[in-house]
């Protein structure tokens, strides 16, 4: 590894570790470092490489991933995470384990959850290098796993309560979009489960602290609000008379006839 790369790396570490970290400076350093890594053949490691260099490369990418979250750039996080995959999966037996590995994997899981990519979430979860019963013991992983479980079964209040229990600072960046997701979920449940709801209770159920926020949200979803009675009435989409799908039935019957012909 060239000396310029090393000095850049040290510079990056300094600006990343300073409190609060210098995000802008980190960004410019990271793009320089990535070019350096490509030149040294370390971004996608190939051939015989020195162990220390690989560790540094991994470190740079990890800082990059966390930096992306801090500067709220999810697609950049996605790129860093894919690049890190090589280090986490293929070099796992050569490299010493990184203490940032599980926080970053956990962040990736949360990201998939907030983007509602549940299938990807489970695929990623399956490929974690952890036995399934150890997931509960790893705070970084168990957090997104619990969130997913609660979201699926509908225990939204638990999700709400868990937002403060994030195992790392970066997890909180996803809380906002997560709250947005669950609010919409709850709202759609309320629309079908209630006839009407007092404003006060609706605010409580939707985790709104002020009435004005609730009113804005209600307007967005097109709810009828009775301000004098302080209730929300949910417009029921009346049981519309469904037409008999003639075309479809005819097509199906013909298909059966053809198949039967073949069998008999």
């Amino acid at each position, binding site marked *: 590894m060239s000396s310029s790369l090393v000095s850049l790396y040290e510079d990056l570490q300094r600006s990343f570790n300073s409190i609060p970290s210098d995000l802008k400076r980190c960004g410019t350093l990271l793009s320089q470092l990535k070019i350096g890594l490509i030149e040294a053949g370390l971004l996608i490691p190939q051939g015989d490489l020195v162990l220390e260099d690989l560790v540094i490369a991994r470190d740079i990418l990890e800082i990059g991933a966390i930096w992306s979250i801090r500067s709220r750039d999810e697609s950049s996080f996605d790129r860093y995470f894919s690049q890190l995959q090589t280090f986490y*999966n293929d070099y796992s037996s050569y490299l010493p384990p990184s203490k940032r590995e599980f926080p970053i994997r956990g962040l990736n899981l949360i990201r998939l959850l907030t983007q509602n990519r*549940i*299938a990807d979430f*489970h*695929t*990623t*979860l*399956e*490929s*974690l290098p952890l*036995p*399934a*019963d150890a997931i509960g013991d790893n705070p970084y992983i168990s957090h997104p796993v619990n969130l997913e*479980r609660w979201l*699926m*079964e*509908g*225990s*939204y*209040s*638990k999700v709400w309560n868990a937002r403060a229990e994030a195992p790392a600072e970066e997890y909180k960046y996803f809380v906002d979009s997560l709250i947005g997701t669950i609010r919409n*979920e*709850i709202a*759609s*449940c*309320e*629309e*079908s*489960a*209630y*006839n009407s*709801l*007092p404003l006060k*209770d609706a605010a409580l*159920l939707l985790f709104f602290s002020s009435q004005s926020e609730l009113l804005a949200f209600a307007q967005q979803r097109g709810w009828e609000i009775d301000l004098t009675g302080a209730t929300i009435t949910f417009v029921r989409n009346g049981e519309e008379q*469904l037409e*008999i*799908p003639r075309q*479809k*039935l005819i097509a*199906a019957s013909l298909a*059966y006839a053809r*198949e039967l012909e073949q*069998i008999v």
Partner: protein
Amino acid sequence: MADVEMRPAVTEPKDEERKEDKEDKKEEKKDEPKKEPESPVTEIKSNAALIEKAVATLEPRFTHRVLRTLAALRKRLDDSVLRKAIEEVYPKDSSVKTTLLSWLPAAPTSDQEMEIDSTTTTAPAKPLPEPVSEVEIYLRLLIIHHLLKSPDHYTKAIELARQSVEKMQALNRRSMDPVAAKIWFAVERAYEFGGEIADARPMFLAAQRTASLRHDDEAQASLINRLLRSYVHYSLYDQADKLVSKTTFPESAGNPQYARYHYFIGRIKAVQLNYSAAHTNLQQAIRRAPPAKVAPGFYQAVHKLSVVVELLMGDIPDRSLFRHPVLEKALSGYFEIVKAVRTGSLSQFQTTLAKHAARFEADKTYTLIVRLRQNVIKTGIRRLSLSYSRISLRDICVKLHLDSEEDAEYIVGKAIRDGVIEGRIVHEKGWMECGSQRNVYGPEVSEMFQRRIGYCLELHNQSVKAMRYPLNAHRKELAAAEGARERQKELAKEIQEGDLDDEDMGEDF
């Protein structure tokens, strides 16, 4: 995982044998009385002759017949059998013979003397011609399988497997393809026992590319399964999914390969929450798999997964499944899970899960079973909604062992939205009112009907496709039909003649 998944692999040649032997049952039957007393050495020798014949007549059928006996033969192999067979198949000063023999431990002296005797007596009578290279690969296959029998020889087996692959690729003969497909299987076994399967992955990937370019369907089917297995073994479902989407599984592949392929796809789909697709694939795997007694390992593994997938779909598996002699013991833990889901008891589910955790972990179904939690809750709510017309949220909370009333309200709300139950929540009074049963005669009925009919038709078509017919069986029928037609003609003629006779007689009278 290793334990369960390995067994279907072991039984592979056997199922091929079972499945395909219907084709030429007659031939087999004729062979059988002769085959029983045959010693492994003579069997190998006759197999080598058959392979020669296959290459000479360009008929892969003979090679397939040889490979069908592989499983039975494999069990009877030992050092001296292999050595003797090689000695007798190859001419005396063949270089191939010496390389093949070098893989076997040196012979004890008594054996050698015997061989010298036999060669000296046969050699002057007729000098052996050098056999085709297919025979060599076949013998290598036998040696690999033999080496894999004892752990001391694993590294040697890997070495031999790698060399055989190189040799195979250098020779590049189409007549070798059936044997080559089996070699790939042996390569995987060697790597699995002797080291990491992942190490063989680059080799498989390269070979898969070549096989698909050469339209070598047998090797391709075998290699895709090898790769999927290696990915699934390391839980790399993403890569496995990509491989599936980028390759086409050869249509002409045999049932055992198809069964495996469907099993892997079913597993991938289940992980991706696509349960109905997973279910279809697993059903296919079960249908194409060899009978339960022949390959119990595969049968059990598929059923374990299929039970979980069925539960995740909201169905309850058939009770009789758990009484099946092969499955009863293997599925006992799953049976308890089914019971918990059926009754909708969250506490029972949790205790069962904790009790069998290690088992599920070994089967790689643990994460799937954990996902069942929501199904348990849904079933519970459904039962309550059916038995009560009005129930307080507090009671729901107690009955379903939920943590708080607040949770209960959200969960019930979600259940109503998802269409699990019909009802309303009256928030001011804190209870749930369960609505009357929905009018069930709507367009969704015809849709459901269509889906089921579609499934039945698909099942029928698949089973027709899976059927095998003995060769030339229709000839007999044709002959019989021909005979019948002949008789009819004769009859018609007789009647006609009879008529004439009558007329004649009439005239006479």
